[in-house]
């Protein structure tokens, strides 16, 4: 019953998302494109925070590195090849996550949070204070990558609808990929590490290696999101790597409910949706957002994804009495 309901929810949500471009409203198509990108970003962080128990406060670094790679590796006045740029950008994010992971995973708890933040700030200042990526002004991705394979072009990222479906397809792929990984022996070990790392070690697991694998994978998937962000907006600034972004994606995960992939997606949509609404009301939107998040953490500690179970329990409780 529960699994059925969850599957139905996912299929209905997917169908609804697939219908968005039919509205013809390019504003909404772009807004939801951004939400989908952030959903990928949030799922990649949830692998660390919700499933492995690693609270990274520097996840924007891998998002930003791939975004910059998309802009810097593209020819200046010509379209780059999507099928080379995407793996290249994601590979660079994965590499950065692997190297940084080698260091940060030697720490635990509050130190881990601080050290991931410190590395992300270093990456931020590399782009902010050096001319590599246009300094604090950022850099334009002038021409969107081309999806052409030989002479055949399956879709055109310059077309908002095509771009939307490409991003949606990648979001679904990342979801299916992570869902599968979490079912694997590797994924079970990650969840075991979150539950009781000491016990995993005493059963013979070299947990450092597993955590490094998870950190690298999360960095790579965060890179997928960053790459798509650069393609979507055609513009990259150092702010993409700032600790504000690391904090925002962490809030998306918490909002949706940690350790739940659908929750991460819902959290990303809710966060970006609220941001849009509050921004249209006042420039002090962060004040409102802060209030909502405090209220949610207080009254719904399991996040939005725990809402259905809560409602069901409330209904059953009502019937029993």
């Amino acid at each position, binding site marked *: 019953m529960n699994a059925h309901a969850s599957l139905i929810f996912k299929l209905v949500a997917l169908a609804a998302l697939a219908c968005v471009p039919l509205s013809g409203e390019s504003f909404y198509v772009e807004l939801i494109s951004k939400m989908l990108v952030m959903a990928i970003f949030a799922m990649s962080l949830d692998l660390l925070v919700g499933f492995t128990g690693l609270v990274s406060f520097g996840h924007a670094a891998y998002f930003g590195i791939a975004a910059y790679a998309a802009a810097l590796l593209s020819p200046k006045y010509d379209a780059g090849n999507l099928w080379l740029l995407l793996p290249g950008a994601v590979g660079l994010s994965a590499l950065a996550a692997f190297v940084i992971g080698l260091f940060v995973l030697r720490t635990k708890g509050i130190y881990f949070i601080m050290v991931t933040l410190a590395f992300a700030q270093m990456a931020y200042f590399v782009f902010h204070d050096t001319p590599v990526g246009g300094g604090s002004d950022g850099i334009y991705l002038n021409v969107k990558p081309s999806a052409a394979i030989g002479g055949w072009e399956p879709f055109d990222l310059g077309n908002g609808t095509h771009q939307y479906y490409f991003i949606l397809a990648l979001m679904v792929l990342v979801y299916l990929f992570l869902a*599968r990984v979490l079912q*694997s022996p*590797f994924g079970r*070990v990650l969840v075991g590490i979150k539950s009781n790392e000491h*016990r*995993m*070690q*005493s*059963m*013979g697991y070299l947990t450092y290696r597993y955590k490094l694998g998870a950190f690298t994978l999360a960095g790579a998937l965060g890179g997928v999101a960053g790459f798509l962000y650069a393609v979507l907006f055609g513009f990259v600034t150092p702010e993409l790597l700032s600790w504000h972004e690391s904090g925002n994606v962490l809030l998306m995960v918490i909002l949706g409910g940690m350790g739940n992939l659908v929750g991460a997606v819902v959290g990303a949509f809710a966060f970006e949706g609220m941001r849009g609404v509050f921004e249209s009301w006042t420039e002090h939107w962060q004040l409102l957002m802060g209030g909502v998040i405090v209220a949610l953490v207080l009254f719904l500690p399991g996040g939005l994804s725990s809402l259905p179970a809560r409602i069901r329990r409330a209904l059953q409780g009502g019937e029993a009495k």
Partner: protein
Amino acid sequence: MSAGNTNEVLLEAKKLTRRFGGLVANQDISVTVARGMIHVLLGPNGAGKSTCINMLSGDLPPSEGAITFMGRDITGLSAAQRSRVGIGRSYQRTNIFPQFTVLENVRLAAQSRNQQPWRIFSKAMGQKWALDKARACIDEAGLGRRVDWVSGVLSHGEQRQLEIAMVLATDAQVLLLDEPLAGMGSDESAKMVELLKKLRATRGILLVEHDMDAVFAVADVITVMVNGQMLESGPPEQIRASVAVQQAYLGTEESFHV
């Protein structure tokens, strides 16, 4: 799995010393664990038993001394590496994955013997060998009727049995068990003693235990520790007859009971 020779020495610790700053928690402790034997570490609180078992399991590096396993020097190995060579341990405070089912707790232990971390697309629940192994170990530890229970809701005694099942699933040749009977009722205690006797047949066991009746019921060798030092080591009859032990430990214990 061959049973091997009985009384074959598996684990040997020579002159282990552990200092915490100026405090000497263990001084010159030498113990052996042989297949087919149960070796019990006995001593009052603060005698250094847990420090000793932590050094044997790799949770704590010794300040001095050497540890060998089946002739191989393992002094420098971490806890995870020692688990891989065949030393399993359970903890004084129950140390399980409380959100997981009994089966998943033990399946994870079984999976540790053939980890294949790169197979990220295969299903963990599709690894029949690990599931079969887990079920067999759960049965062996006497938890067969709790396979699908969430382990956090088990009774204390059942959680101790689960710990044993997890250690068994790692194919451990040496079991280091820190107070497996602590907090158990007499019924559960008796079952655990039977289990320990059964396990002894094919493995070597080192036990830290307070329950005197149980200790004398299962021990082949007893080492008595006081203030971080070895007071006496030998078969139960020798320990029972020892004047030094009676003065240091059993005497006070009995005066409590009388």
